């Protein structure tokens, strides 16, 4: 099967479950590679590889803290995903609001039918 480019944008980058785990670990603050290795139980090269992909799409930032490299989430890069979730939620909310109107009418019709029986 043709392999889609996984690093072209943030949506594709986070389609990989391990990278989502990494982001979850970074959600509450910055961490070093060693901390991430420890928390995820993955090898250091694997963690570094996934962090590199996330950096390439701008989902994480890195800064040097002495000899440690500290990684953190870049909220701006994740905004498209948040926007997508919000958009999907909004589409369904709008559908359901319209459905409320239909249901009100069905309820009235049903009450009328009962009264006319």
């Amino acid at each position, binding site marked *: 099967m043709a392999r889609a480019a996984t690093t072209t944008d943030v949506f594709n980058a986070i*389609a990989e479950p391990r990278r*989502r785990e990494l982001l979850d670990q970074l959600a509450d603050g910055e961490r070093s590679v060693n901390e991430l290795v420890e928390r995820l139980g993955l090898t250091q090269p694997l963690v570094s590889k996934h962090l590199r992909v996330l950096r390439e799409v701008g989902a994480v930032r890195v800064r040097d803290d002495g000899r440690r490299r500290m990684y953190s989430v870049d909220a701006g890069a994740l905004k498209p995903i948040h926007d997508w979730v919000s958009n999907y939620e909004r589409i*369904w*909310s709008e*559908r359901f609001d319209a*459905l409320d109107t*239909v249901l009100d009418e069905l309820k009235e019709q049903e009450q009328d039918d009962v009264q006319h029986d």
Partner: protein
Amino acid sequence: MSNTTDTHKATLTLPTDDQILITREFDAPRHLVYRAWTTPELVKRWFGGSHGEVTSAEIDLRVGGAWRYVVSAGGGPESAFHGEYREIVANERIVSTEVFEGAPEAESINTMTLTEQDGRTTMSVLVQHSSQANRDAVIAAGMEIGMNVALDSLEQVAQALA
């Protein structure tokens, strides 16, 4: 009359990597919600939300029967969705496949469940993607995404952006 100040919001969660779950409560008994969900003339009135017009709604409500909805947003290009009914329990549950025709290789299985309590109905729609490859194809189409960054984290992200 319904209480118009009581706006119900659809709740969206991502239970696993390949699922999307949408829930919503309605101030109506479930046989009416079911009727509105399965009657083409009624689907036409709600499936487009406030931005889209449903130009076609076809429903062959039997196991193996097909459904297809076409939505036009503001006179723009049409989006079409179709699928097949897998399981039908009147007023309770419908399992069907769904294909967004913009990403035809990516089929999901949707389970719509209705539960009623005190005359109110809770609807849940579980969208189960059939494989990660298909899910990713849908992601690429920009329609749906099975990602699992915890919504809580996303809330934090959103707040950070505010």
